[in-house]
């Protein structure tokens, strides 16, 4: 069915790996089909025309970290011109792995890479929400492409799909994967917001919380369990990788 006024979707990416867009593009046929139902704008990997952020969008998806002055200005313009803004992926939801910089000596890290002051911006890593109002978050590193699709198709029928607040543990057990926590490994599954289909656990990789904290997460229970085998210093390292530590500190 061809709609007269198609929903206008903007796909924006700031500094990052663009992996979230590949997670969506890799659904190839579904992505092409979506292109027929909605108007996709600013998909840099798909079109050459530059759409200034000053065009109007029904929904703007923003992926990546606002790490340059230009990035920061862009997100503010997108906000002004969009009805809905969705933070896409761990970078915009939590700060992404680059956030690790915040836990170490920032100058030392910078000098290791560039050896000297060469006039390059080195902002603190911020989430999208610290800069603009965000209406919805689709977390994950990378996102689960199907979650993105569900959200867009929901909007097409006039619903703002809310993600169900289940921990990764729930999705893991449902699929019958082996519990790594029971085996004595570090897994943040009990406190992490599900929706990833426990994909890491399928490959026996403990959850490191790339989707952030689930609502009402029982953090202290998990820490207590982890302390049986690990020092606080070791546990903290795991909490830092995707930035779930920050969320715990803010509880």
């Amino acid at each position, binding site marked *: 069915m061809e709609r007269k006024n198609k929903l206008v979707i903007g796909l924006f*990416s*700031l*500094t*990052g*790996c*663009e*992996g*979230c867009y*590949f*997670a969506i*593009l*890799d659904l*190839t*046929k579904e992505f*092409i089909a979506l*292109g027929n139902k909605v108007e*996709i704008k600013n998909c*840099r*990997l*798909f*079109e*050459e*025309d*530059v759409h200034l952020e000053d065009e109007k969008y029904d929904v703007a998806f923003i992926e990546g*970290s*606002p*790490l*340059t002055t*230009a*990035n920061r200005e862009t997100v503010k313009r997108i906000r002004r011109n969009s009805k809905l803004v969705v933070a896409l992926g761990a970078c915009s939801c939590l700060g*992404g*792995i*680059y956030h*690790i*910089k915040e836990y*170490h000596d920032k100058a*030392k*890290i*910078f000098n*290791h*890479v*560039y*050896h*000297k002051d*060469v*006039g*390059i*911006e*080195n902002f603190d890593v911020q989430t999208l929400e610290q800069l603009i109002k965000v209406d919805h978050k689709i977390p994950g*590193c*990378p996102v689960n492409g199907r979650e993105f699709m569900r959200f867009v198709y929901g909007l097409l029928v006039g619903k703002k799909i809310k993600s169900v607040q289940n921990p990764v543990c729930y999705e893991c057990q449902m699929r019958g994967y082996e519990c790594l926590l029971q085996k004595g490994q570090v897994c943040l599954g009990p406190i992490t917001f599900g929706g990833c289909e426990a*994909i*890491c656990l*399928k*490959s*026996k*990789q403990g959850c*490191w919380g790339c989707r952030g904290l689930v609502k009402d997460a029982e953090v202290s229970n998990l820490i207590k369990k982890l302390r049986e085998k690990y020092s606080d210093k070791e546990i903290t*390292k795991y909490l830092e*990788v995707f930035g779930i530590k920050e969320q715990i500190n803010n509880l």
Partner: protein
Amino acid sequence: MKTIQINHLGKTEGHMSFVGALVNNDFAEARIETEEGARLIEGILLNRKFYEAPIITARICGICPIVHNLTCIKALEKAENVQVTEEIVVLRKMLINAQFIHSHALHAFFLAFPDIVGISNNFDFVKKYPKECNLALEMRDFAVELSRIIGGRTVHPINSVIGGFNVEPEFSELEKLMLQLPEALKKAQILFNFAAKQKLPEFVRPTNYVCLKDKKEYAIYDGEVLFDDNNKLITPEKFLLDVKELVRPYEKVKRVQHLDRSIMVGALARVNNNFKQLHKVAQESWLKTQKERPCYNSFFNTYAQIVEILHCFKEIEKYFIQYKKLRTKPGFFGRLKVEFKVRAGRGCAVMEAPRGLLYHEYELDNEGKIVYSNIISPTTIFLNNLEDDLKSYLPQIQKLTDKKQVQLIKTLIRAYDPCISCATH
């Protein structure tokens, strides 16, 4: 003095702009400016545990996370003196070949090819060439699916770790997918023939083609570094003796030079240097478009990528047969992961990424904490060569209309398949 500026060049991985100026009739300046922020990946690895590195470095790039993950793993295995089994190597080679196919397919058919047929928006491209696009997508899907089965996920692999693989890739899925390989290869051949019918811009500039060389096979996973200007082979450990990474003021991306000169890496470098080791079907295809070797026309990088797609399918076929045999031997499951004791050490590794040589180097202390890291990505290596090409190309096209000039510059830049995310890690 006439200047040409292209802001926010689309259809490349990462963000960049181009500035060029024709100084006189046969001399031009050209510069690529990157617009990614500083992520400082090498810096944030410091003081982190070694097992975080393959997970963190995969996130350098969403299009080629597998090769970052694997190169990082190889470097760490060298530092830790981990000897992996034949089973692990074969699986890794299947994984990296899958990475080549889906990265190349995306670039060749959806980022570079629309340039060749003069279409700027891919949704229009899909409408005009529905059959070819479908073939390209279906062919790419094979590789995406293979990376999912072996790596655990399509973007940012999970299953591939230091010492091998956490779990055995679901064999029934693998077997079922392999049944589709002949069909996927056929699609790739049809696409190559379609692509070969198009005319690429003429351009010649000899340069130094650099890639891995392995006596046994077309080198991707392993080998020594070959510099074609002097036919010299060097080990990964000696790679940085003559190759230097330069930091320039106000530039987030570093530049790489070999003895003060630019070098070229990537599909064209590999096809030029290792042509005889390509599978027959790939060799024959290449010869349909280009008789001379080395081919000094950088626009042909896109054809070289499609030729590699054909080659990679044949490689996957070969490795799967090998893998199937290994799988029937007793003790197979125990050989998918090698245990090791953490020690202090230093190691580096070079692997071919879809865009060319990728270098990772790490030093660990005796607790397995990373105390040094260095990553050099292919786009960093070829950026100077791209600028040298542009400098030489601008005077040649000065008589054309501005619009046509801009189009050709974009086409040349995109033919390189630059990945600015990788370059500004």
